[in-house]
């Protein structure tokens, strides 16, 4: 299969999943997101009512008691010093509202944080790096990057538990349509779960400032039917493509310093500092979501990552055109 038809095939496959580019937190498609939305709506109702009443009173007071041209300014209004009954009233009523709000918060916090895992659970370890995500599946022995695949089911019975770790500084894992964010903190294990109820290619972001390229530390979360997820894991578990026609390109790749940072399973490239490239072409974007993954972009990226994502930790290697062609040709075999 030549690289172009491969890309076309991948794009067709990907387009089966609805794009969820507008990460609207009020269109949640998983349990934690839904209960957070319930809290939000209740808070909107209460604060909205307060806004109308208090804001209305302020505006009314300004409009009603504004002095107008022609008023006798020497005439002072009645001097009122206060009223204990009124003070008590507008202390007690807010306290009652506060109790309602606290009760709701306590219930939802406990419900989300102390939920016990359902029977069918996928475990994923997400590790934040400056400025990309390492994604491991301990049960399947898979390591990938930036694109998190998890199964979904319409009834929400497929839950995924994330263990969140960081290799360097603090990050935060946030896919608004599925769940609120949980920080990814070095030297600490944090947990997050979600059970998507709709398939989709979800967009998210790192939400804790983590240095130069915080903006391009994006998350792509693919929620797919369990059978597709299964297929995906099987593909990810295979070693790198060893087609003989790529042997020469592969040799060039392995002779360059790419291998110090990148891993390609089944070869001598065992670097762990950068993203695992074993199935690079199965991912739709490169550079933590900064550009789409196609031949042209891939070539531009390998040629000069600093031009595309200034400050990122991948150096520009100053490859010759020929080396560049060969490296890109090899990378394109890593489906």
């Amino acid at each position, binding site marked *: 299969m030549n690289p172009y038809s491969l890309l076309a095939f991948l794009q067709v496959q990907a387009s089966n999943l609805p794009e969820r580019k507008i990460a609207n937190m009020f269109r949640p498609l998983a349990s934690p997101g839904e209960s957070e939305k319930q809290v939000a709506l209740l808070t909107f109702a209460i604060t909205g009512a307060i806004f109308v009443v208090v804001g209305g009173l302020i505006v009314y007071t300004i409009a009603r008691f504004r*002095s107008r041209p022609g008023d006798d300014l020497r005439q002072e209004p009645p001097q009122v010093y206060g009223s204990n009954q009124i003070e008590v009233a*507008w202390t007690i009523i807010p306290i009652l509202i506060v109790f309602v709000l606290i009760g709701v918060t306590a219930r939802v916090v406990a419900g989300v944080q102390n939920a016990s895992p359902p029977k069918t659970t996928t475990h994923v370890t997400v590790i934040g790096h400056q400025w990309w995500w390492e994604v491991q599946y301990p049960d399947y022995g898979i390591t990938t990057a930036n694109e998190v695949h998890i199964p979904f089911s319409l009834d929400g019975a497929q839950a995924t538990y994330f263990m969140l770790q960081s290799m*360097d500084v603090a990050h935060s894992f946030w896919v608004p349509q599925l769940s*609120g964010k949980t920080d990814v903190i070095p030297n600490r294990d944090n947990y997050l779960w979600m059970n998507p109820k709709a398939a989709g290619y979800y967009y998210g972001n790192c939400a804790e400032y983590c240095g130069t390229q915080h*903006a391009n530390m994006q998350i792509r979360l693919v929620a797919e039917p369990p059978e597709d997820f299964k297929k995906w894991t099987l593909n990810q578990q295979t070693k790198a493509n060893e087609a003989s026609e790529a042997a020469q390109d592969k040799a060039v790749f392995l002779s360059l310093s790419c291998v110090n940072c990148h891993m390609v399973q089944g070869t001598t490239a065992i670097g762990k500092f950068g993203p695992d490239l074993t199935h690079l072409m199965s991912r739709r974007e490169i550079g933590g979501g900064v550009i789409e993954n196609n031949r042209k972009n891939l070539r531009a990226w390998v040629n000069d990552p600093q031009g595309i994502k200034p400050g990122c930790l991948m150096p520009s290697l100053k490859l010759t055109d020929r080396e560049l062609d060969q490296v890109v040709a090899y990378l394109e075999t890593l489906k």
Partner: protein
Amino acid sequence: MATIDYPLDRPRAVEKEFSFSETLYKWVATVDHKRLGLMYIVSSIIFFVIAGLEATVIRTQLIFPNLHVVDPDTYNRLFTMHGTTMVFLVGMPFIAGFANYLVPLMIGARDMAFPRLNAFGFWIFLFGGLLLYFSYIGGGGLGGSGSAPDVGWFAYAPLTERAFSRGHATDYWILGILVSGIGSIASAINVIVTTISMRCPGMTLTKMPMFVWTMLVDSWLIVIALPPLTAAQIMLLLDRYLGANFFNTQKGGSAVLWQHFFWIFGHPEVYILIFLAFACLNEVVPVFSRKPIFGRQAMVGALVAIGFISLGVWAHHMFSVGMTSWSNTFFAASTVLVGVPTGIKIFNWTATMYGGKLRMTVPMLFCCAFLLQFLCAGLTGIMLGMAPFDWQLTDSYFVVAHFHYTLAGGLVFGIFAGLYYWYPKVTGRMFNEKWGKWHFWLFVIGFNLTFLPQHMAGFLGMPRRIYTYPAGRGWELWNFLSSCGVPFQLAAILFFAVNFVYSARKGEPAGDDPWDAWTLEWATTSPPPEYNFEKLPVVRSSRPLWDLKHPQDPDWKYNQ
């Protein structure tokens, strides 16, 4: 009872001409609370303009998706410097400036309790600020080019550790803030001692002006809240240079520990800042409503309650760091609870206006806008206090919108109310009312246009502190609108600056008491002489000038 003797209109002191060097010496060597107060305020205004220009570049970068007006590092430095400047070099010195200028005048004293400590506080704050900005020249370290800190105003560990922050930019951030913090503490101690021990005869705490009360509570908060930050900054320095590893996660330190330290300071800090606006409103609203403040005792009680509760809410900045459900619930509860005394304040200001005769002068307009905008800020604050909602909202643009509604729509509007209100006292001249109104309306439009749309960007998942954003995620419109507000704000500030500079020389003479006000600062000349009062006043109520002007109906006849 002896009559109270403060002649309301006395001849202005003859102005002597001074040479430039004499003038310079007078200002640099001064220990007079009014000059120091003025120097604090002028430095704050200059830093405010600098921070505003930094924000202008930020909003220019974000007006369209994928725009690269500045590179990522420059952008990150700009938002770090903007936040740091606004909090430590604008908000804090404004507090010290207003308190210094007004507290002795309002309590009928001749100066602060510790005049030389006062001068020390100002100069060390100013040098702290200059040290921070010197990073643009020296931050790269020996032989390196300049680079300002790019770690955010909260400087989360371990991004600040040497492994991730090379050069000296972070050291400038640590030292600049640490040093100017010493100035803030010095000034706060001075305010506390002055209000406790130097009030004029008859001024019991129950008769102390509300401005002074607010500054007293504020100063206590500063004394309590700032040391944790200073301690944490010293620990960070030890980490960076002596291998202490408090926050160095690579060697077993704790990143969350820094966050606790920072927010134990950081949350009381936002109340410290907003108290200045409260203090201004407490004076401006009653005077222009022509009524005493409604529920004075409740107002003082609410103030103290906010002070106490605000010391126990810090971890609501940390709902997403993975605390236990009990901790999250506790901090959610305390956060929502602080809304009660804050609400009481808004209700009481409204009640003060209710039934009054509102004079819509420029300071009063700023107070009215404050009430509505601060109401919005308080309500979005409740949304953020609801921990499950906060998991979505925190670190998104919604938070940016929220705290700009408190600190710009609240604090800055309150400061402008105060600046316009006391301008005639300080300069002896009236500002131009028409230009003042232009300033107000442009600022209201610009402010709301800038920050209202940011709530929406946050709902759509836009994180904070990103130097650019891709097209197609629904953020374009909101960012475009937000950036469109900037020129309005810039124009407003231009009106403000021109008005203040021009009117100081050419404005109408103001007289001692242009607003027909009630507190003691209006009983002396404008500007007040170095000794403030020829004869120390004696007061019998919280509105001594009201008593004087209405001998048939004085305040002290009523139980208050």
